[in-house]
């Protein structure tokens, strides 16, 4: 269902990267505004200035990290779709784990393993919730059997009805 609302595959990487960047920028902005407000020296004006400075400094970095995650995830997802010739939850889980591993590549092997595990579990949770919601919302679209007609009534129409000649 969701696959038809997204871009086709190579462009999906750009799209996901942009979505992740936006999400990171807005979320990081909210988070950093609270943090800067709390950490600033007292005085309402100073607090606003500190909040603004924190947003300006930190939220693009958070957004960039999000964008890297989204872009890498989508790239691996598209590669898996190309290799495995199918789109299923395993693609997302594998690419989540691979993304976590690759992005922690410069921190050493144990960090890679932990990051990959966290990425895989996170994506498995997301996919599981998605499947759960699809199951729940599919309940109301169950096809209902049409009422059967009594075949004994059809007997009388055999001569009076259509004639294909």
């Amino acid at each position, binding site marked *: 269902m969701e696959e038809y609302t997204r871009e086709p595959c190579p462009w999906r990487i750009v799209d996901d*990267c942009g979505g992740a960047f936006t999400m990171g920028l807005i979320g990081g902005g909210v988070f950093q505004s609270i943090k800067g407000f709390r950490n600033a020296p007292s005085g309402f004006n100073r607090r606003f200035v500190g909040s603004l400075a924190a947003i300006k400094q930190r939220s693009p970095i958070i957004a960039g990290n999000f*964008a890297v995650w989204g872009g890498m995830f989508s790239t691996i997802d598209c590669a898996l779709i190309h290799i495995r010739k199918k789109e299923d939850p395993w693609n997302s889980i594998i690419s989540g784990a691979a993304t976590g591993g690759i992005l922690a590549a410069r921190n050493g092997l144990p960090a890679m393993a932990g990051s990959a595990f966290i990425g895989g579990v996170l994506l498995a949770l997301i996919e599981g919730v998605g499947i759960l919601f699809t199951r729940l919302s599919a309940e109301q679209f169950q096809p209902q059997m049409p009422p059967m007609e009594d075949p004994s009534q059809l007997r009388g129409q055999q001569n009076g009805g259509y004639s294909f000649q």
Partner: protein
Amino acid sequence: MSALNDTDIYSQNYNTTSGNLGSYKQFSSPYLNFDPSYLPQAQPEFIFLEGASKQRGRFELAFGQIGGSCMIGASVGGASGFYNGLKATTLAGQTGKLRRTQLLNHVMKQGSATANTFGSIAVIYSAFGVFLSWARGADDDLNTIIAATATGCLYKSTAGLRKCGLGGAVGLGASVLYALWNSRDKFTQLRPLNPAQR
């Protein structure tokens, strides 16, 4: 198709059934029970949702634009970071493993900084553009120009009034250039600059 529409030997048998259709053309083939000229043949047909606009709006394009500018920023910044890193490591006389790590650091640092800058500008521009097209109910070049100017102003707004104006001017100039380039067909129709082209 014109050969089929002519009266040939096949159509003679079917003229009797279509005689009561009045002004319709007589049907030509035994396999077609409608006039083939009703089918649109040249132009493509698209199916649109009821009530949806026939073009993708700013919101649908926004994420692609943001991601694209992010990636462009990353590649530009990475390339220039690679160049700067080469220069810096040569000056410092670093070789081997040390130089490789320093190069990676340069590329990563400058690439991510440029990508963040470009992406932030794209997010602000898209937010202004989406808001304007929602508020005005139209999606045209004026939206682009206003959104780009406001983006330039807002991005430089904390650096003082003069910088703010400068940023707005940069946004205005870039968007006007883009709008002129975008509507260059209209201008060439309006006033042919070069008569030799015609």
